[in-house]
């Protein structure tokens, strides 16, 4: 099973995946120069959900705190939710990768390959995902170094002023979409009882990822304030700042390659936890059938349902309450169950 260090590194790599593609431009459209604050709020709330989720995991995960029937129901709900969510988020990825890497529309090829590759990675299990995350951290670090060293952008940081001039609405403006970007829910299915090391490293990595995302938003708004809300890919825009075409080639591709790696890891992470959740109440074969079906479903969703990013976002905005239930209410409820189970166990042993 994955250990806490692997979780920390995995989250560091995957947290920015979907948040640095189109979310900042949406936040810029609703919160303008305060979009980085809006991102901070979205991330802050997400970190808050990590507390109950880790508590559940350290108590043995959902499998150990819930009766089997309830576990099956919750696992099935989570599987459906992740299918919907991956379908929605991948619309953005497919659109962006097709546009930046190919001359012609290759969306079907990209989503098919993405799901096929991720399906294989996920089939190797949660432990392998953790190990791959440990290797992916090196190119991730390279990306940060390239961005810092070769950046030729000229951000005007006065563009972020005045801060919070529209009051609380600046902070909450992006929440209706931001709530979809919670990444920690699958961790509730982990059993971390065997790992007695400190959970602090997970919180630290999540905070580092948050700082990176918020800094990226600040640089983005400081560089592209006037066109921020109409930018379809923030990563592409910002990495364009490190282009040195006539000297060492387009270094923005380093960013794109690392981002693709992280995306594959993210999709694999979700599928691997679907496999684990299903396997906990059935067997390997059924679990593989389920994740294969999800992969096919996501390909269909991206090819026929949400063919454009705005369509996916429109659905996401109308279903914001589902995201709140899944990412915020469910973990808190599970934490309460975990705490009650602990108390019951303590009482029984005392008797």
């Amino acid at each position, binding site marked *: 099973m994955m250990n806490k*260090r692997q979780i920390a590194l995995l989250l560091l790599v995957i947290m920015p995946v979907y948040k640095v593609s189109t979310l900042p431009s949406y936040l810029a459209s609703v919160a303008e120069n305060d979009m980085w604050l809006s991102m901070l709020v979205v991330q802050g709330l997400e970190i808050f959900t990590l507390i109950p989720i880790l508590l559940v995991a350290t108590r043995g995960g959902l499998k150990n705190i819930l009766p089997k029937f309830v576990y099956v129901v919750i696992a099935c709900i989570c599987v459906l939710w992740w299918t919907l969510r991956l379908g929605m988020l991948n619309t953005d990825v497919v659109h962006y990768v097709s546009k930046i890497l*190919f001359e012609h529309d290759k969306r079907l090829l*990209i989503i098919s390959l993405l799901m096929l590759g991720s399906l*294989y990675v996920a089939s*190797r*299990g949660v432990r392998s995902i953790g190990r*791959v995350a440990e290797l992916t951290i090196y190119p991730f670090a390279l990306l940060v170094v390239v961005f810092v060293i070769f950046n030729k952008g000229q951000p005007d940081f006065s563009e972020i002023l005045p801060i919070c001039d529209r009051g609380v609405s600046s902070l909450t403006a992006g929440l209706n979409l931001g709530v979809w970007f919670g990444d920690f829910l699958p961790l509730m299915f982990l059993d971390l009882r065997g790992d007695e090391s400190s959970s602090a490293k997970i919180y630290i990595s999540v905070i580092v990822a948050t700082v990176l995302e918020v800094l990226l938003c600040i640089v983005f708004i400081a560089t592209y304030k006037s066109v921020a809300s109409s930018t379809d890919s923030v990563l592409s825009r910002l990495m364009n700042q490190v282009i*040195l075409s006539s000297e060492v*080639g387009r270094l923005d591709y380093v960013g794109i390659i690392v981002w693709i790696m992280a995306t*594959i890891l993210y999709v694999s992470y979700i599928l691997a936890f679907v496999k684990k959740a299903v396997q906990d109440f059935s067997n390997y074969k059924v679990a593989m059938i389920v994740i294969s079906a999800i992969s096919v479903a996501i390909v269909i969703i991206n090819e026929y349902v949400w063919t454009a990013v705005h369509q996916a976002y429109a659905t996401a905005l109308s279903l914001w309450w589902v995201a709140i239930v899944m990412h915020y209410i469910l973990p808190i409820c599970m934490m309460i169950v975990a705490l009650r189970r602990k108390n019951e166990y303590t009482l029984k042993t005392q008797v």
Partner: protein
Amino acid sequence: MDRKTRVEILSQLLGKCFDIEVRDIEGEKGTITLVYADVIVDKDILARDLVTPLQDMLDTTSPTLEKVVESILTPARITEAHDLKEASVKVADGSIAIITDSGVLLTVLKKVAHRPVGEPPTGTSVKGPREGFTEELRANVSLLRRKLKTPMLTLEKHVVGKYTRTDVVICYLRGIADEEIIGKVRDKVVGIDIDGVLDASYISHYLEEEPNSIFRHTGTTEKPDILAGKLLEGRVAILVDGSPIALTLPFLFIEDMQDGDDYYKKDYRITFERIIRLMGATMAVIIPAIYVALQEFQYQFVPLKFLITLLNATSGIPLTPTLEMLTVLLLFEVLNETSVRMPKYVGMAISVVGAIVLGDTAVNAGLLGSPAVLVTAISGIGLYCVPDDAGTFSLLRLVYVCIAGVTGIFGLVLGVMVLLAYLAKSNSYGAPYLAPYAPIVREDLKDGVFFAGLDKMKFRPKSFPHHNRVRIGEENDE
């Protein structure tokens, strides 16, 4: 059963072999018959230690088994054969059967022609020891014993192969190697049911826990110093009679980046060389695919000046970049295969002529672009940064070229992730294949790509199970 009947049956069991000698030693008190394979027995010692003393004995006393054992001078062990079938097997293996009316005794006076100890071709050393294993098991064991003068060195002998009856020795340091790993290796060796074992690679197939893996899961070395080092780390080794290759288990991928000579150099130099090896291997696998992806889809990636040069060099090539690269790579594979198989005196000519004629002529004729030949050459050189994995890497680069030709950089990145996931799950006798990097084993990173120095490696590798962790300091007791 009398002596004559025994000799007759034994001769029948051994069949019609020109080298099987049946020799009677007659004296006043009786006769003894020696049966042995003429070609693998030391005849001088046979005459001195066996024939002469037996002759003397037969003049004074009748040949009982006890008397025969007393009179023989040989330091080799003398055992009594339980039956004639066992005697025939031993004679075929080089033993001498001493047949009397009261039973059959067996002793060994083997003398086999073998290659002298020399520098192994697969592990040349600049500053380290130059001796290498040979095909003679006993010589190999003696080389190992010279490095590890401890009673904790254990050498378990097993016989494998119905017809070859090859000696297979499991070596480990008692008190350091993990019993579970030793047990697993022993079970696998004992369980091998095969007609013949001609080389260590036969055993290696049976020892691998993932036999279908494209990557090897068994370490190999021809050098006693490297083998001693691996045993000191807590690994288990297998020596096979007739093979100069020693197998080591568990095996980690990082071992391919290490070299026996590493430990005789300065620390910073070792780190540099390991980075170069890793880069070379990565380049070998990825560069042809990147070239194809850039040519087919992502040409914006290439710096402008380089792109212009590239376009000039590839304009007019009738093949697509993918087909062009596959052609050059396959030609390289053919040349490589030929240079290995050809007799030495024409091998050099073929490889040079092949490279010049094929490459140059194809480029001049406009069939292939010079960048593709250059990329293949760079990749080919890179392959041999990690020579033990050259076969696997050369296959992988062909696969990646195909992927890149259809899906560009995106597919290539996906392919790399799939490979990482594939390797991340692999284990070798309880050791994660990609340790100490995935999972991170902090202590073992000191001997990873970055080398911290021998004096800093206080503990044995933690990536695989063993006992007695401390290598340096007072706690390091036998």
